[in-house]
């Protein structure tokens, strides 16, 4: 029978994907450019900043060969303003605007480099912030403050996600724009379970609605524009 693994990604898997995000580092040692399968790594010349994938940046940071320049949104004033916004509205704070004509998605967007916009949370905000706070807390201004704000932000957003379940009903939906990868990984099991349950309970009603619609169509009342793929969650 089916694999006992739940659908979706686990937190470590999400964090693994997040390690592809580019971050800005200030190298302390020279390193020649590397030709890796994931793309070329530019040569490191102290003291010029370079963008590296997070996994390499963390590695170099642990070996004390580089300092990480945290993205602008990972600072107390930015997090404060985002937290205030989250507290004042029922929706999530808007995600990072995509540059026009782009076809890429996270982790291939420069959303965690030193010149990322300071006023929006990128897709991998939670896991990136956690990893940077853990490995490079000495490069982040006021790390304790940032950690506290991150935790508050997470609590507020998780509470919103759980509250969103209450308004779920056939036809209505919960807007989840701006929800991060790790939050999806955490909320998937519960939200999916609720939606499945509601569908099971409402199955008979749904069926009679379909029958009624089919009848109306046969009698020529319903007209042509039926919404077959109008999915109720």
């Amino acid at each position: 029978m089916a694999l006992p693994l739940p659908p979706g990604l686990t937190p470590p898997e999400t964090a693994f994907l997040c390690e592809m995000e580019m971050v800005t580092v200030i190298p302390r040692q020279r390193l020649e450019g590397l030709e890796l399968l994931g793309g070329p790594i530019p040569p490191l010349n102290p003291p010029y900043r370079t963008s590296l994938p997070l996994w390499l940046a963390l590695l170099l940071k642990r070996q004390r060969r580089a300092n990480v320049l945290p993205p602008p949104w990972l600072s107390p004033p930015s997090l404060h303003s985002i937290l205030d916004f989250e507290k004042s509205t029922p929706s999530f704070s808007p995600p990072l605007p995509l540059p026009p004509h782009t076809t890429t998605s996270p982790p291939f967007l420069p959303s965690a480099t030193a010149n990322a916009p300071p006023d929006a949370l990128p897709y991998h905000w939670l896991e990136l912030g956690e990893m940077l706070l853990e490995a490079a807390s000495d490069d982040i201004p006021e790390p304790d403050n940032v950690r506290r704000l991150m935790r508050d932000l997470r609590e507020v957003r998780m509470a919103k996600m759980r509250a969103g379940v209450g308004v779920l009903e056939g036809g209505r939906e919960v807007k989840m724009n701006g929800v991060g990868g790790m939050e999806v990984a955490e909320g998937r099991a519960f939200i999916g379970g609720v939606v499945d349950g509601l569908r099971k309970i409402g199955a008979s009603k749904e069926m009679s609605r379909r029958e009624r619609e089919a009848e109306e169509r046969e009698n020529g009342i319903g007209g042509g524009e039926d919404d077959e793929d109008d999915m109720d969650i």
Partner: protein
Amino acid sequence: MGSYYDIDAILTDAQKVPCTFDLDIPGLGYLDENAGGDIKAGTRVSLPLWLSTLLAVQRLGPSSQQLCTLDLPASISPRVLAALKAGPKTVDLRQLASHYYELAARVLELFEEEEIVDVLGETFKERAAEIADHAHNPRGALGEAQDFLRGLDEMERQLFRSAHGSSNAMREWMGETKKKR
């Protein structure tokens, strides 16, 4: 409907619902603890869901008379529904039926009572929000929430388990990142 081997579907089918026989049927007395005897019209018996739904849709003879009628089980009686409407979180669904929602959904397929569907959906949502809160902070599960969590039906238990699992996995990952230092 789930898979053929879905244990929850099987257990749902085994739950008993009341039905009333409309005909005298010879030799079926053993259903009413009267082995060898006949079953009389108007007898009420509790039959498993799989049997009663089959009997209820079965027609006999040229007059196509119904063999038996399915009654609304006590677990979705107006009294219970009123209680659910008043306070969804205080009702012990497990005591009513271990697979409460699935039983109700199966029965409602035959009854077409849209109002009951609405009440049950509302109940499930309200209880789901409560379940999420308890799954999130495990201390609650031992304290005053114990009664509520014991009253969950099987579907809600699964929901609790999966919500608890993902919040646990998250906590584990967060703890791991701190330990590696």
